[in-house]
């Protein structure tokens, strides 16, 4: 009889504890197919790793004082706009409170477009769901909707800094020649709107530009143009595949500029895997390198989940911690009945943030929902990205 009473008491206690086991769902989404698969894989790993760390520390504190575990799911949008829209609607129909993603800028733009533009606008039937982007980096997207926020580096600030620093450090270098991948929104915008502009602002003169397409394989003409221009610095605004193609052709034709500057998102494993030898010395501004304890810890934890830590996946890691902070500050209920109210609170909380704590330092946030992340310059040396200059 005593044993039975004990068993029953324990059962009650256990069920009580289980009832305490609330979950908060955060869904990640991005590209896990095609040439951009690595981005999705890494972001997912970073999110899972961050969730583990947060859960080990006790989880998220809800409004009623109890703690909830974070549950992470990751959906593949295949870098396709229609699918991305379908995915976000699907996520909104579950009990997820917020989504982290997407990977591709060509998905982000339509996706933000179907969100409600202005909060509280009753005449706007757009989706009311907070999206906190980790990777899609094309300039000026978050302002499309007040439900969209991004934690991506500000390329204007970074390239301004790069060219300024280069001008200071190498005063005898005067000309910049650009190579740009024209058919990808991000790389195209970065050369025409950011690099060209900032290089000129820092006192360089633009010797010209050569264009190619994302999947091109023959760069003979473009590199010949580069050779003729004979600029001191060549800035390549392209993704790893065509960047490697151009660098190889440059080697073949004997084009050796004094300095090489690259595109933010090419400061990853892909470039080194494709053409480490030819990419030696290329300078890229980035918002992540394992230079301090937190950064190294994040990288290790992500590696345990089979993902690589780079500026993109580490943004996803940061997002998880920022969301924890926001959820606790806004006192979300975590109850399924208050789903929409909780989502609204998260949105409001994200909108309020003026600064967030990033892995490299404090990140500023602006009224449009964009971030101004601390950055440093890395350079390809051997088989690694080595910190060249840390302005922090």
């Amino acid at each position, binding site marked *: 009889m005593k044993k039975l009473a004990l068993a029953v008491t324990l059962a009650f206690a256990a069920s009580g504890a289980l009832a305490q086991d609330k979950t908060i769902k955060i869904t990640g989404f991005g590209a896990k197919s*095609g040439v951009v698969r690595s981005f999705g894989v890494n972001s997912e790993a970073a999110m899972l790793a961050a969730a583990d760390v947060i859960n080990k520390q006790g989880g998220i504190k809800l409004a009623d004082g109890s703690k909830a575990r974070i549950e992470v799911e990751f959906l593949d949008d295949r870098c396709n706009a229609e699918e991305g829209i379908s995915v976000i609607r699907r996520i909104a129909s579950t009990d997820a409170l917020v989504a982290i993603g997407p990977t591709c800028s060509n998905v982000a733009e339509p996706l933000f477009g179907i969100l409600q533009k202005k909060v509280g606008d009753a005449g706007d039937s757009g989706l009311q769901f907070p999206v906190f982007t980790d990777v899609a980096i094309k300039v000026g997207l978050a302002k499309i909707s007040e439900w969209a926020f991004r934690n991506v580096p500000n390329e204007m600030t970074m390239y301004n800094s790069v060219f300024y620093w280069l001008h200071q450090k190498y005063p005898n270098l005067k000309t910049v020649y650009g190579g740009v991948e024209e058919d990808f929104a991000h790389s195209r915008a970065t050369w025409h709107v950011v690099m060209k502009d900032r290089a000129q602002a820092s006192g360089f003169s633009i010797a010209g530009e050569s264009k190619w397409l994302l999947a091109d394989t023959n760069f003979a003409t*473009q590199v010949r143009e580069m050779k003729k221009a004979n600029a001191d610095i060549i800035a390549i605004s392209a993704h790893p595949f065509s960047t*490697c193609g151009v660098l190889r052709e440059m080697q073949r034709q004997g084009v050796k500029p004094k300095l090489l500057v690259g595109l933010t998102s090419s400061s990853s494993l892909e470039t080194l895997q494709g053409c480490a030898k030819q990419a030696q010395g290329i300078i890229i501004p980035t918002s992540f390198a394992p230079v301090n304890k937190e950064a190294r810890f994040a990288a290790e934890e992500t590696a345990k989940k089979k993902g690589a830590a780079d500026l993109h996946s580490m943004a996803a890691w940061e997002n998880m911690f920022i969301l924890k902070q926001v959820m606790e500050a806004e006192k979300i209920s975590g109850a399924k009945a208050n789903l929409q109210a909780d989502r609204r609170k998260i949105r409001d909380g994200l909108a309020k943030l003026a600064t967030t704590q990033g892995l490299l330092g404090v990140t500023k946030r602006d009224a449009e929902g964009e971030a101004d992340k601390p950055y440093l310059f890395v350079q390809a040396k051997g088989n690694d990205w080595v910190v060249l200059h840390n302005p922090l």
Partner: protein
Amino acid sequence: MLDFLQAVSDGVLFGATYALIGIGFTLVFGVMHKLNLAYAAASVGGAYAGLLVLGVMAGAPPWLVFLCAFAAGGVLGYLVYLSCFHFIPLGSPLATLMATVGMLLLIDEVIVHFTNGMPLAYPAMFDDVMLRAGELTLRGDLLLVFGIAVLCMVGLLLLLYRTRLGLATRAVSQQSVAAQLCGIRVGLVNAMTFVITGLLGGIAGALIGASVGALSPLLTTPLTVKGLIVTVIGGLGSIPGAIIAGLLVGGFENVFQLFRGVTERDLYVMLLLFVFLVFRPGGLFESKDDHH
């Protein structure tokens, strides 16, 4: 003027890679009168498989990788035959077309799955050799690709016109029923055609990887499109046509790029193809056996 000549020569040389892919496309179309849209994907897949050699033996010489790609291409060719052509009845050309599309997607996804979509450096031979012809510079490795394309063409023509298998293949392509009546095993001949084009595809994929310097899933679609264009311009079923068309397309592409820039380049290539189709639908070397 020099710019123009240099652009032409750069383009024509790179066209040798298109020629290689085109030969396989045109052979399958010429023999089986069916489009194998999975051909370029299988070729790239074979090239990727070639890299497995490096996984086993770190410092393996490039020719060993190419050999492995060659063999893998043959295997993939046979798999494509089995999954898309063997079981589907001859009266359903649309079904085979869609099945090859399915295989293209499958092969692409398998590649993406194993490499996480990232480009892989490919071993090259003579990739740093630049020859000079007067004022022009020519890429040594592309000349090698051209040489191999010509060798393949000679080899295939010998196969088609001097061997029993070639005789059987031509018989099946002309009159498959009559060929069966003569005791030729149509299924076996078709399978062999796919294996042979697959072997060729493996080499093509490997050499393209070597010329580009890296393999990426990005290569599949443009190669498929170029291969189809080359097949049409060269004449369906004509191997010498495929080579000449490949060089032509490469040359024109670069010239268009020189004059109108890279964003309009492909537009003009498409229009060139369209013009060809309307005014010379048989291609440069119209096939002698023209029956529908």
